[in-house]
């Protein structure tokens, strides 16, 4: 019994020693052998464990990054929410800049501060006052058209009556001057928005839906040509002697935050061509794009021609054939009588063609119109040259 136990203990110690020796051997392996061995184990029977560990690591990374990712997502969402309003504001500011560049002078840019109380939808506070040149009854405009008129002026700010105000009136007409009327606000309902009424249009003048209506310039407050709105439909009123039309306003005052106040001295100079139609703007943009393409094409052609000229001059200087020109093989000179006669005939024909060309050129000088339409005659080059000569 005791011997068996001693034998077992010896066996255990031998195995232990073997394992430790093997472990030390593995530890003592050079790097060039250790790494391939470990890699081999990782790629074979340890692959599932490696995969599990990688998944766990990824899970931990996801957990750690969840909060920053959520914060980032929130920031992005907030940015996306702001982007829409920023885009519209950017668009409005671009239009305003465009209007300013067309007006050139005589306007005061201002911020429109909307109130949120009763009747505040018909008035607005402007961030420019008399110090900036604003006076009472100065027109207030936006890139789209008419906004209102200044009714009170302080040194640093002013108060404007919007076209939605019941007291607001403006003399209006069609751009071709065939119909005139007075435009004023039209409340579509107790909870509805505002439209514009064009009243007092002569009965003989009919306006089609979509027709543009602009200020007529009569009355001395509004200059001529500022867009007011487009015709929606004719409405029936008790006035039998005139027509009344409903207009879709060019400017929604609730959406106006940046405006321009026209100075009185600018009004007398006119506003021709200030408000162009969208189609004209698009056409202008398209023209710019097309002209840009043409200019680029012309520049590319000029560059190619210049490059070709340089290469040709180098080729001439070196006595080599021009680029893209393969010199024709020069046949051996035939001295038979038939060949001599043929060459003489060819020379005579060439001389005749040259004479004809000279006479045609003289005629063209005498008659330029004909010269423009006549096909130029290119004299044939029959001069014999040695092989390899440059023409």
């Amino acid at each position, binding site marked *: 019994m005791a011997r068996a136990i001693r034998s077992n203990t010896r066996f255990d110690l031998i195995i232990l020693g073997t394992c430790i020796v093997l472990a030390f051997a593995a530890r003592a392996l050079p790097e060039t052998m250790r790494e391939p061995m470990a890699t081999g184990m990782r790629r074979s029977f340890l692959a599932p464990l*490696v995969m599990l560990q990688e998944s766990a690591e990824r899970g931990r990374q996801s957990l750690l990054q969840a909060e920053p990712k959520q914060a980032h997502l929130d920031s992005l969402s907030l940015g996306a929410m702001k982007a829409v309003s920023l885009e519209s504001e950017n668009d409005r500011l671009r239009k305003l800049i465009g209007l300013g560049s067309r007006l050139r002078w005589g306007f005061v840019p201002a911020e429109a501060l909307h109130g949120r109380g009763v009747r505040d939808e018909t008035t607005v506070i402007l961030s420019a006052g008399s110090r900036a040149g604003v006076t009472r009854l100065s027109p207030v405009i936006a890139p789209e058209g008419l906004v209102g008129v200044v009714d009170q002026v302080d040194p640093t700010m002013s108060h404007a009556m919007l076209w939605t105000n019941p007291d607001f009136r403006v003399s209006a007409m069609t751009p071709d001057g065939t119909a005139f009327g007075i435009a004023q606000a039209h409340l579509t309902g107790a909870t509805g928005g505002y439209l514009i009424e064009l009243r007092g249009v002569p009965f003989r003048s009919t306006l089609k839906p979509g027709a543009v209506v602009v200020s007529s310039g009569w009355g001395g407050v509004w200059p001529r040509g500022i867009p007011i709105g487009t015709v929606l439909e004719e409405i029936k009123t008790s006035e039998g002697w005139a027509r009344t039309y409903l207009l879709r306003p060019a400017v929604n005052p609730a959406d106006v935050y940046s405006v321009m106040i026209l100075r009185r001295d600018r009004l007398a100079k006119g506003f021709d061509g200030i408000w162009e139609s969208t189609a004209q703007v698009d056409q202008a943009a398209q023209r710019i794009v097309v002209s840009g393409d043409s200019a680029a094409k012309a520049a590319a052609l000029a560059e190619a021609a210049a490059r070709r000229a340089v290469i040709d001059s180098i080729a001439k200087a070196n006595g080599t054939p021009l680029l893209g020109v393969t010199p024709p093989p020069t046949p051996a000179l035939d001295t038979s009588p038939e060949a001599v006669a043929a060459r003489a005939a060819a020379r005579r024909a060439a001389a005749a063609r040259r004479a004809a060309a000279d006479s045609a050129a003289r005629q063209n000088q005498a008659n330029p119109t004909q010269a423009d339409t006549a096909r130029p005659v290119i004299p044939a080059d029959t001069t014999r040259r040695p092989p390899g000569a440059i023409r």
Partner: protein
Amino acid sequence: MNLGGAIRAIISFLIFVVLHYTLRPLLGWRAPMDFLVLALLLASVRVRPATAAVIGFVLGLISDSLVPGALGAGAIAMTVVGFGASYLKAVFFADNLVLNAFFFFLGKWVFDILYFVGEQRVKGVELLQQLLLWSPLSAAVTAAVGVLLLFLMRPLLEPAPA
């Protein structure tokens, strides 16, 4: 150990190994628990010292192959720990949780000492800090988790009679 007991022991062993490569990296603690040491200790108390040494050697090679440059260090440590645990099983593996916890703690700490000394990557003060601060902490966590798992997996982990 009968066949059923062997199968249950193997299943427990595999569960610990899988936990080592899933739960441990997921938690990512500075002083992590070592499920491989737990698996080795629980296997060692059921087999002869020679077998425990072989199991430790294989487990050590497995853990070393996933740590570049440390091949062999874990094998040495696990071999010694497995052999020692199997040799001392009659002393430690009584039905006492505190003793079992100390068994796990000691096994993990001895493993860390052998491993870090054999690995020779950490030296000087850093080695002392590792062996006297982080290794005991890791051993304590391992012991706590081992006792918890021992309690939860009691039906599977009934040790064979000595």
